[in-house]
């Protein structure tokens, strides 16, 4: 199971075979397959609401290129002015954790986001750095827990646990996948036995033939804060030059 949140479409949209009662892994695989796109681009608005009710918002552009699990993505803030130009480059690897670099134009230098820091919050949002990476199908074990309707739509309830080879901050994740369109609508992340984050997918629309949620809400249940991400100008399969997704390009601030 992936935890691709910002890679909006790839969440878990599976089509095709009727896999009712089928193996959980196959459901997830199908969801990924339906989600597949060569590239993706959108502008996002990020709104963080703290427990005290204080709100702050930022805008970024997001670009992703390559096959799921080994794609590269680039995230660049555009507003507010203090953070304009700050960028994050993610290079996913199917067999291991992604590489992530951050670029700060004011300092004119990049820094590596260390593996150890992936569980920390992503720049004050309720996402962690780990939530940004793509996780290959084979890196988890899946169990079908049952079926449950979400907002009137029947869903599979699937539990995924990370394999030893690739550790995660989460001990398990429970995902609800709509049986009609193979799109995940809700995820609950557990650290040890405690529910720590809840992610909801909303405004699921068909974009360029891919069912895509246009709004996400991530709630940090410990901090009691939540982050809403709204996507705009979403495009699939646009032409993006691969050399945009390199460390050099990051440093050039393109």
């Amino acid at each position, binding site marked *: 199971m992936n935890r691709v949140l910002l890679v909006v479409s790839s969440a878990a949209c599976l089509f095709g075979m009727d896999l009712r009662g089928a193996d959980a892994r196959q459901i997830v695989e199908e969801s990924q397959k339906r989600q597949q796109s060569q590239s993706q681009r959108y502008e996002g608005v990020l709104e963080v609401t*703290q*427990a*005290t009710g*204080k709100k*702050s918002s*930022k805008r970024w552009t997001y670009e992703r290129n390559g096959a799921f699990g080994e794609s590269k993505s680039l995230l660049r*803030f555009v507003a*507010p002015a*203090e*953070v304009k*130009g*700050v960028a994050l480059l993610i290079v996913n690897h199917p067999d291991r954790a992604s590489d992530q670099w*951050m670029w*700060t*134009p*004011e*300092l004119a*230098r990049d*820094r*590596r*986001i*260390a*593996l*150890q*820091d992936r569980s*920390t*919050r992503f*720049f*004050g949002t309720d996402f962690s*750095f780990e939530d940004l990476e793509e996780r290959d199908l084979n890196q988890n074990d899946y169990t079908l827990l049952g079926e449950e309707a979400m907002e009137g739509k029947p869903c599979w309830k699937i539990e995924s646990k990370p394999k030893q080879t690739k550790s995660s901050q989460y001990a398990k994740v429970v995902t609800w996948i709509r049986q009609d369109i193979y799109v995940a609508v809700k995820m609950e992340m557990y650290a040890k036995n405690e529910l720590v984050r809840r992610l909801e997918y909303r405004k699921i629309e068909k974009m360029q033939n891919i069912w895509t949620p246009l709004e996400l809400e991530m709630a940090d249940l*410990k*901090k*009691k*804060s939540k982050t809403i991400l709204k996507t705009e100008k979403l495009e699939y399969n646009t032409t993006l030059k691969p050399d945009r997704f390199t460390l050099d390009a990051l440093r050039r601030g393109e």
Partner: protein
Amino acid sequence: MKLLHLISWQYTRKHGLRTVLTMVGIVLGVAVFVGMHTANQSVLVAFHKTVNRIAGATELQITAGEPGFAEEILEKVQSIPEVRVAVPVIEASINPKLKTPGNILVLAVDMTGDSSLRDYDLDDGGEAVIDDPLIFLAQPDSLMVTREFAKANGLAINSKVSMETMQGPKTFTVRGIMKSGGLTSAFGGNLAVMDVYAAQKVFGRGRRFDRIDLALQEGIGVDVGRKKLEQILGPGFQVETPAARGKQFESLSSVYGMMANLTSLFALFIGMFIIYNSFAIAVTQRRKEIGILRALGATQGQIQTLFLIESAILGLFGSVAGVALGVLIARGMARGLGDFLGEIYGVAQRADELSTDTRLLAFSLALGVLTSLIAAWIPARSAARVDPVQALQKGRYQQLTTGENRVRAVAAVVFAALAIGLAMVGGGPFFFYGGYLSAVVAALMVTPWAAVWLSWMLRPLLRLIRPVEGALAVDSLIQSPRRTSGTVAALMLSLALVISLGGLTRASYDSLNQWMSVGLNPDLFLSPSQSISDRSYHFPAEIVDQVKAIDGVRTAQGVRTVRVNYRNEPIMIVTADVAAISGEAKLPATAGLHEDMYPKAAAGEGVILSDNLANLQKLKLGEMMELESPNGPLRLPIVGIVLDYSDQKGTVLIDRKVYMEKWKDDTYNVIRIYLKPGADVVTVRQALLERFSSGLKVFVFTNKDIRDYVVKITDQWFGLTYIQLAVAVLVAVLGIVNTLTVSITDRRRELGVLQAVGALRNQIRQTVWLEAIAIGLVGLALGLGLGAIALYYSLEFTARDFAGMRLEYKYPWAMAAFLLPVILGSALLAAIGPAESAVRGSLVEALEYE
């Protein structure tokens, strides 16, 4: 106990003033001991606290001496499976010039991951302390301060704070305020957190870190983790627990602790003589009383116990007062010590609260009581041996018995011979300190005899001044060697200390001046910080050429000084283009030849040590010196040893090429600038300031500035030792007061007779004053003499165990000349009270007095 109350209390009450004076020696000794140690302790505790608070969940810290290490090391460490989290750190102590005086500690960390080690968000409300983490990282001027610091300086989120940076003064923005607790109480709350990558720029560190803080995976022991890290990183790195870092600081301040011990032991030692003196007097004065007690059936043991208990009580009261006084003075001392260590070693710490150690206090009490007991031992024993029959007879009893004299004389000769013998044997510390001790003991043994002899010598002189008063004053000394010798010994010891320190000081200044005139000959110095010894900021490599291009500059040499560990001692590496440096300044060699050592060092074929490093580490010309670096060990032969007083722990001169290769550090922290003949210092200084007015932060010092600074630091160092002098002289003067108080009691009849046969009050006063002068003169003569010997030993001590510096023996005549009026003046001052009480009181009683 009844006996004690009946006998001792009555006596004590009658001699209240004297009891107090006697106690003062103990009070001062204990106070200095408690004060200096508490101050030292407080600074250490403050430092440990800061280290621990800052450490948070850090289990191990990786350092590579002052130069730090390249960024790549971080990834290497992070990739080790045993390591759960490893974060880079840069620490600097800077002065932000705010309401709160003094420096603040800037802790620069990688904010993305650091929260797993250090908890910045201590409020349970869950509100992020940093207003917006992304902005904090995106803007290099972001700063997070503690709530206390913000409050004290009226800062809020988005307030501006100005700080010196490598690009000149720069305005920072407060983007986070830490809630109270844990981390925020480090460094007395004067703490600011910033982004480590921003700090690299601000402090000119390049792509380097000072330190890596790390925590291990669960279940991995600290020792296991440490071994693994050491094995991977190699010997150029130190992997230590945060607590162990405090140890290094302790070694820096250990010299001060030693000083504290010496001073207080000295004060106690002198105090001991005063107590001995008082008790010896009391025993003679109370001889009759003791005789009666013995006649009534008191045993020898009871008498001895009586006096010992008396002294223990005296010691206890004195110690309690001393502890209280010590705690009082500790705060001021702690501040001074903090500043001093900060200035000399550039180690950031602040002791804002005193940490009083109960064990230290208990120990001090015990020390005071023990001193008092030891001092009273001999008088108590002689009290026990009082013969009741003789005691009840009238007569004179002050003179020393010939037997006593002979024992002393023999002991003095034996110890003197021992001292000379040991000095000639030389060698190990046992011989050295044994010799010193023997010399002092010999001097003490000879004191009573010497005091009498000197008094005889003085008699004609004083007779000439005042035929009756003078002669009688001296006679009083001659008649009562027991009364006088304790005080004379105390005075002798303190003066010997003054002379030896004075000589040491003078020799140090002489050597420093000599060194400065040879080694510190550039016309101007360029530094990235206001203090030449501060190494928080560095210059980039290209600065040397930029300086050379300035009009009026003949040549410029970049120097980088860094402290590194060598055999667990923090020694100083001085690195520069040796060929260029030696062209301008060659330091006097103590081993090796200039023509040989500088070319070899310049070629990277050897290192040149400072004389003190060679002495302290017992290194010799031609030996191999091995220094650990982050890129493997550096092994080079010692090609020369020169006189260089740059650092107390010693310096090693290494050519820049070698240093850069091993430490990958191409920065400078001082540029030495030589001007063209005829170029004006002021003009060039201005040109330099203008050249770097935008871009780099520079401070230009003239040659005189630097010399003044060196002298100031040295002054500060010796300033500490002057406390010692003040205490010693004060205690000795108190001894004079004590002795005179007793003397006028002893001489009461004599003074009465004088008045009866027509002496005016002034003539009586004069005889008391003259007695004080005589004590002063005798003490001076003995003290200045013993000082000559003590100076020899302090110079040896300096060379051997302390700073490793060989200093020339020069008797401080000027100081001796200065002491003459000071001591005689103090003696006169001490005599005022006793002289006044001598002219008061009933003549009739005095004439009947026995």
